[in-house]
């Protein structure tokens, strides 16, 4: 008999939908708010974010104490909307909810006095609603539903400024993601035809299908991975991501760390582990092709990042590369690789959001958009530059940051899976990461500052290098980047949770 949950009045099954609604309802309310109601809008935003965190806290507690949080609603005969808070879901949901809170604070500071804020924050909330839906989806139908909702709710954010460049980026984004969604839909329905409705369960559930469906299952796998691979920015499906960097900085944070690429990478995790099952996927020879695609993406993204002078574009190509570490870890057959891939889902989010917040700070405070303009910024904005430095070292994989933990487990996982060439990929990628991040750090700290900044929007005041709401979120996430690395061995770390997940996925696995 499990102990009573903390929430005495709410049935367990209602918690997952409540987590979804905790951002959806404030979002809808915000749409209808007058622009001038700043205080009410901020209250709604923060109340939603905090309520979501509280609900997730209850569920984390409950999952540790063997509570089950499953919500089911029949949409069509034989097709159910299932929201489930399992270990994997909670990993992603916690990440999104925590980073969303930071992004909301940052966005409030970033958009101060900008037009159309009600629309922005409305879609912003729907976007996070879709993300937690993706995280807690209990089957492919539900996953697809929220995956497409994510596409629709991010489009208005990408084109928010309405400039021709933003409209073009939005167009490209839609083209890629809707086409990817179509592939995902066909794959999903095909699978429903073959196996009926299959819930996401550790170890997957397709191994029992008759052997003659193997060919179809390979094709379905390709469709599903291509569908989620568009958002995960697998090469050659990554073209939209670098263009989308024209969006406002909080949206970039959302695209790169909290929501969009994460939803894609998370989709890969779910499809491989909980639809096919890692062992069944291995027996169908599906993992090596996925590892190869991931490896190509890692190298290609880094190579392209080298030549970008636009800071956000360089970061965007870096995302292309880094997100595929997750796919790579997933494709390494063996629990250690799984741990590396799954934990990087969290680590990449924390590190990349730090970098985008800092890039936004440089642009908003001093009007700096290009790498070549960053000379001497470290003296004018030491806190932002320090946070950026921590994020960059994390991306390179230097200890004791979060990125080091990811790479360590990925490397060990490669050896365990007998794929030594993956080590070479990791080594080359690390060198490339250093090659495109270290010059930025050199400019920040060791080059002399120019006589005046191009557009100093926010003057330094009372010891604050920029406005508080812009500064505190990156400092907090940079601290987290260090903390999850330093305290990786503690029982509350993302690494520990990833180990729990890996243990559940390899039920029958004997090393």
């Amino acid at each position: 008999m499990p102990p009573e949950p903390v929430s005495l009045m709410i049935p367990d099954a209602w918690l997952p939908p409540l987590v979804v609604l905790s951002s959806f309802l404030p979002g809808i309310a915000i749409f209808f708010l007058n622009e001038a109601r700043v205080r009410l809008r901020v209250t709604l935003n923060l109340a939603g974010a905090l309520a979501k965190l509280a609900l997730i806290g209850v569920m984390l507690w409950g999952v540790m104490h063997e509570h089950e949080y499953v919500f089911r609603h029949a949409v069509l005969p034989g097709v159910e909307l299932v929201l489930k808070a399992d270990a994997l879901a909670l990993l992603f949901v916690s990440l999104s909810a925590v980073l969303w809170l930071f992004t909301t604070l940052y966005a409030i500071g970033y958009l101060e006095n900008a037009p159309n804020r009600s629309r922005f924050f409305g879609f912003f909330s729907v976007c996070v609603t879709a993300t937690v839906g993706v995280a807690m989806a209990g089957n492919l139908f539900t996953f697809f539903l929220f995956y497409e909702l994510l596409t629709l709710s991010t489009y208005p954010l990408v084109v928010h400024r309405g400039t021709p460049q933003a409209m073009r980026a939005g167009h490209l984004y839609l083209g890629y993601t809707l086409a990817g969604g179509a592939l995902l839909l066909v794959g999903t329905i095909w699978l429903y035809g073959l196996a009926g409705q299959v819930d996401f369960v550790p170890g997957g559930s397709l191994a029992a299908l008759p052997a003659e469906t193997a060919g179809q299952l390979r094709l379905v796998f390709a469709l599903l991975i291509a569908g989620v691979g568009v958002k995960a920015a697998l090469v050659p499906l990554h073209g939209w991501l670098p263009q989308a960097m024209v969006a406002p900085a909080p949206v970039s944070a959302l695209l790169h760390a909290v929501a969009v690429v994460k939803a894609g990478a998370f989709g890969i995790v779910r499809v491989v582990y909980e639809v096919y099952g890692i062992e069944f996927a291995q027996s169908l020879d599906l993992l090596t092709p996925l590892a190869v695609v991931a490896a190509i993406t890692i190298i290609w993204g880094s190579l392209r990042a080298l030549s970008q002078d636009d800071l956000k574009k360089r970061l965007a190509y870096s995302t292309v590369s880094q997100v595929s570490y997750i796919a790579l870890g997933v494709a390494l057959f063996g629990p250690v690789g799984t741990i590396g891939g799954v934990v990087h889902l969290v680590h990449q989010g924390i590190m990349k959001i730090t970098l985008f917040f800092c890039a936004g700070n440089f642009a908003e405070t001093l009007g700096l958009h290009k790498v070549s303009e960053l000379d001497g910024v470290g003296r004018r904005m030491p806190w932002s530059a320090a946070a950026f430095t921590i994020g960059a070292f994390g991306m390179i994989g230097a200890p004791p940051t979060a990125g080091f933990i990811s790479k360590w487990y990925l490397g060990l996982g490669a050896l365990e899976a007998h794929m030594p060439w993956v080590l070479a990929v990791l080594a080359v990628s690390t060198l490339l990461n250093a090659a495109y991040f270290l010059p930025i750090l050199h400019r920040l700290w060791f080059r002399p500052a120019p006589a005046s900044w191009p557009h100093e929007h926010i003057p330094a005041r009372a010891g604050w290098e920029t406005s508080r709401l812009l500064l505190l979120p990156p400092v907090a996430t940079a601290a987290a980047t260090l903390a999850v690395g330093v305290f990786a061995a503690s029982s509350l770390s993302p690494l520990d949770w990833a180990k729990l997940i890996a243990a559940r996925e390899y039920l029958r696995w004997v090393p």
Partner: protein
Amino acid sequence: MPTPEAFDPLPWLILLPLAWATAAFALGPGRGARLAIAGLAAQLALALILAGQVLAGGARAHAVGGWGAPLGIDLMVDGLAALMLLMTAVVALPIAIYARGYFRARPKGGEWFWPLAGFLVAALDALFLAADLFNLYVTLELLGLAAVGLTAAAGDRAAVAAGLRYLLATLLGSGAYLLGVALLYGAHGSVSLTVLAPAVAADPAPAAALALALVVAGMALKTALFPFHFWLPPAHGGAASPVSALLSALVIKASFYLLLRLWLDLFAPLVSVSAAQLLGLLGAGAILWGSALALVQTRLKMLVAYSTVAQIGYLFLLFPLATGVSATAAEAAVQGGVMQALSHALAKAAMFAAAGGMIVAVGRDDIARLGGIAGRVPLTLFTFGLAGVTLMGLPPSGGFSAKWLLLMAALESGQWWWVVVMVVGGLLAAAYVFKVLRQAFPPAEPGDLVHRVPRAMEWSGFALAVGGILLGLFGAGPLALLAV
């Protein structure tokens, strides 16, 4: 089965709109809006009561005035008919509220809207309840005449031309249908569906096959199936927005309903896989051609009208997916087709309402000059977007559920070519919907005034669009009714 004393809403569903239409006519030009709204609210309640009765007690017949066939007129209701009646009421009520605001802002063509709309609703309900082929014909003609009247009501050159074209198509369509009915009557001596169905099944006369061809051709013309869609865009795109909404959402569904009913029931022993594939092929042509033409339109309402041409195509994919396949595939196909009819009714009514709202806001019907809409009338734009979600077939929406069921049927029966068509059609729909949305985001050009839109217009359209979304989340109820 209700007891004889129990209230039977069946005849009232037809009499009530006739009553308020007549009263509105007697009141004079432009009058009768409030009467109509009250009548339609009652209509919605009646349709809900009837749906509950059918769900509980099954399909049943009603002899008007107690006479019964063959002397009197029989009405018949089953799950499909109850769904269609519900669809009519759910769409017509918000559109009536919308129309009241719309014709205040743009009075042109609104003088006789209320009586004609009442006759239109009465004809629709009578058609859905008809139990014999001849009553179907009469209601079909009444519906066509009311629709043509509404189309031409603006009275200018373009409206009269569109109305005449529509009249020609609708008369030709019902003429072909009548010819088919005559052939059946000659061969089997009855027009009652209950009498004819077993007779045709037992001994299909050669005339019956010809009748099938005539009925299919007539209904394809009246439903504006590609390539017989020539009359639809000018009629639906040119009429006043509330009229466009009624025509696109409801009127074309009537002829589709008739065809579906006869295809699955009376003509079931006669239909062939090749005939079904041909209908599917035309449906595919409609999806691709209609979407492509929607994409190149410069006028907003013409874009929405061509979108209707495309969406009709999905309805006709039902036929190849339900004919000559396994029972599970056929069931999914019929469910998908009906779901598409329902969700398109809600979404297209919402989209025409939103288009009308935008036209009222900027004062012209030009996609390239919608700047400022997002800032000034966001709810109307949001309505357009939500309706677009249903038309693109993205989740969660009725359009998505429809597509899911149709795709399921296609994969289940191994007809992957329809999968390709539906996927491409969805992407094309996204292209034309976002073509409008992206124009609405930039600020208005200097000198362009963007007016506010009356609240009743904005919210009634929004309610329809939300209905299309809710249908996707709660589709199990309507499908349970369909199974009766």
